[in-house]
């Protein structure tokens, strides 16, 4: 037995409390639906598949100040030493490090520069034939480089490299017809034949416009500042990381070994701001929902204390306890519905505003719907306690004078 009409009339005659609740519900709905969407967006970003066994990979920097060696030959020795370390699966010098936020990118063209042609942005990594295995990425078509195809040099002008392995994403973008394997692309005016296709792997920048485009180029240049990637057997990374500095310095000591970091750590650093945003939003909406629930709870308690006599009278006139509980639930549901209606409009407006001023996609209606249901249930739960208390008011209150 729902008394919608008289409850509505009663509400209309004591508006302020209802309006306050309504505002809270509306703003809460607007904030929560938009924040939930941003959170979901960040969660998807943070949990995306990178293509790497992040827990088994680590990287380090080598800064060489000694001038008495052939750098590129030294790096060959270092690589051999690293590959022989117990617990290491494979290792390679790598000109950029994936997921780290620092690396190189260029446009890759169908014709040599400076001729105008189709041009696709992609990150690239100078690495030898161990690169794919080191990064734990599968070759899905074609072949890997051979040792002979790798240029090892100290001179920036040596241009004997002529092959590349690219990711499926880059290949598809360059050759949408699917006939890219074996074709030639140009890195500036340097022709590179695509001999192999790598499985999914992310570029150094997860937020790049083309985060899935990576080209591996068999070219090793001896530079004073170099980076190495090492893949270890599962669970042995920490042990290998601990001995890496000593091992490298034993090989040659006029250099600094630093930034020894797991790939997951590098990724964590790169995405830290997004993680922070996600956490802050989660905290924000949790507290917000609690505050709103508390507001509904408090206002209902107040309403009940104001209406003690009325409730007693209703009980005396034959209201069952359930009728009293229903009364408050219906009253709240009505306020809530109007609040949600406003909230949905506010959520859409806020979504529009965010989309206009920031790089945030349009708010999907499902988020608003989900939030509205959640807020509705939350408000009913918040009312239920006080309503049950109201139902326990003795009908004999009605005969008390004050």
């Amino acid at each position: 037995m729902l008394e919608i009409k008289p409850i509505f009339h009663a509400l209309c005659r004591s508006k302020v409390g209802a309006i306050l609740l309504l505002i809270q519900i509306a703003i809460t709905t607007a904030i929560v639906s938009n924040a939930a969407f941003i959170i979901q967006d960040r969660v998807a970003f943070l949990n995306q598949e990178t293509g790497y066994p992040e827990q088994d990979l680590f990287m380090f920097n080598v800064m060489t100040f000694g001038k008495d060696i052939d750098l590129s030959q030294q790096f060959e020795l270092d690589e051999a030493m690293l590959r022989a370390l117990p617990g290491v699966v494979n290792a390679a010098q790598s000109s950029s490090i994936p997921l780290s936020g620092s690396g190189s990118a260029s446009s890759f063209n169908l014709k040599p520069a400076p001729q105008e042609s189709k041009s696709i942005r992609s990150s690239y990594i100078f690495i030898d034939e161990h690169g794919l295995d080191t990064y734990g990425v599968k070759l899905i078509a074609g072949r890997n480089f051979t040792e002979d195809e790798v240029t090892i040099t100290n001179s920036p002008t040596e241009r004997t490299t002529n092959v590349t392995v690219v990711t499926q994403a880059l290949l598809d973008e360059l050759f949408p017809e699917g006939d890219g394997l074996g074709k030639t692309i140009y890195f500036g005016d340097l022709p590179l034949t695509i001999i192999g296709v790598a499985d999914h792997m992310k570029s150094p920048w997860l937020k790049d416009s083309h985060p899935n485009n990576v080209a591996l180029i068999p070219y090793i240049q001896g530079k004073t500042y170099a980076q190495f990637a090492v893949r270890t057997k599962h669970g042995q990374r920490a042990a290998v990381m601990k001995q890496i500095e000593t091992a490298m310095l034993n090989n040659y000591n006029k250099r600094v070994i630093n930034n020894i970091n797991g790939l997951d750590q590098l990724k964590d650093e790169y995405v830290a701001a997004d993680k922070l945003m996600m956490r802050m939003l989660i905290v924000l909406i949790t507290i917000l929902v609690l505050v709103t629930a508390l507001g509904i709870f408090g206002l209902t308690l107040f309403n009940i204390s104001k209406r003690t006599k009325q409730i007693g009278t209703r009980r005396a006139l034959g209201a069952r306890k359930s009728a009293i509980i229903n009364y408050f639930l219906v009253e709240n549901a009505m306020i809530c519905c109007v609040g949600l209606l406003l909230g949905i409009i506010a959520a859409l407006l806020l979504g529009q505003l965010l989309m206009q001023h920031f790089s945030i996609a349009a708010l999907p209606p499902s988020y608003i719907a989900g939030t509205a249901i959640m807020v509705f249930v939350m408000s009913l739960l918040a009312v239920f306690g006080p309503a049950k208390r109201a139902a326990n008011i003795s009908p004999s209150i009605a005969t008390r004078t004050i």
Partner: protein
Amino acid sequence: MLKMNNISKLYQTEMVQTHALRDFNLHVDEGEFIAVTGPSGSGKTTFLNIAGMLEPFSSGEYLLDGIDVGKLNDNQRADCRNQKIGFIFQGFNLIPDLNLYENIEVPLRYRGIKASERKRRIEQCLEQVGLASRAKHLPQQLSGGQQQRVAIARALAGEPRFLLADEPTGNLDSLMARQVMELLEQINRDGATIIMVTHDPELARRAPRNIQVVDGQLADFTLYQGAQNLKNVAGA
């Protein structure tokens, strides 16, 4: 019709036990109009609350219309109040957020009566108490006497067998009190049984039967009436 046998009501706090009612016995027949008087704190209101099923009693037996009230659960008591009893309160107890029409409607809704039937009864009752033109008004827009008439209309709307009135004229001036009293007498003539608690002896005298509650027990009302008669003789 209404039978109370050895009803006791005990209020217990940590320190003391208070007997609000002690071995209270009362029989009321159909169609009676009874005035209950007694000094304040004597247990009048407790008696009324128990009679109206607003409060449980500690021991004894209470039969209303043949129903053993002590054996009813909370919902059954609520339904029983709704169907058999009409209440008139000293403070009127109209619901301030609802207009007159809606106020009278409250008990009818709890009984689950159809909207058209509700409308017929409410209009009839408002007519009876002379406030038909004010159906849309809020209680605070009316005088005390008018409010009490609305409260009576509300009590009548359910067509109860019993009317329980708690100091119905307590908050009214004498003119309005007389009007309300006349209304009650009319209702009694129409067939309802009325139990009215009052501290006003003049009002009590207008009721055909008077009982007095003293220290939670029924005082000898015949003696009391005898004394009244004597006084009347002396006065005449």
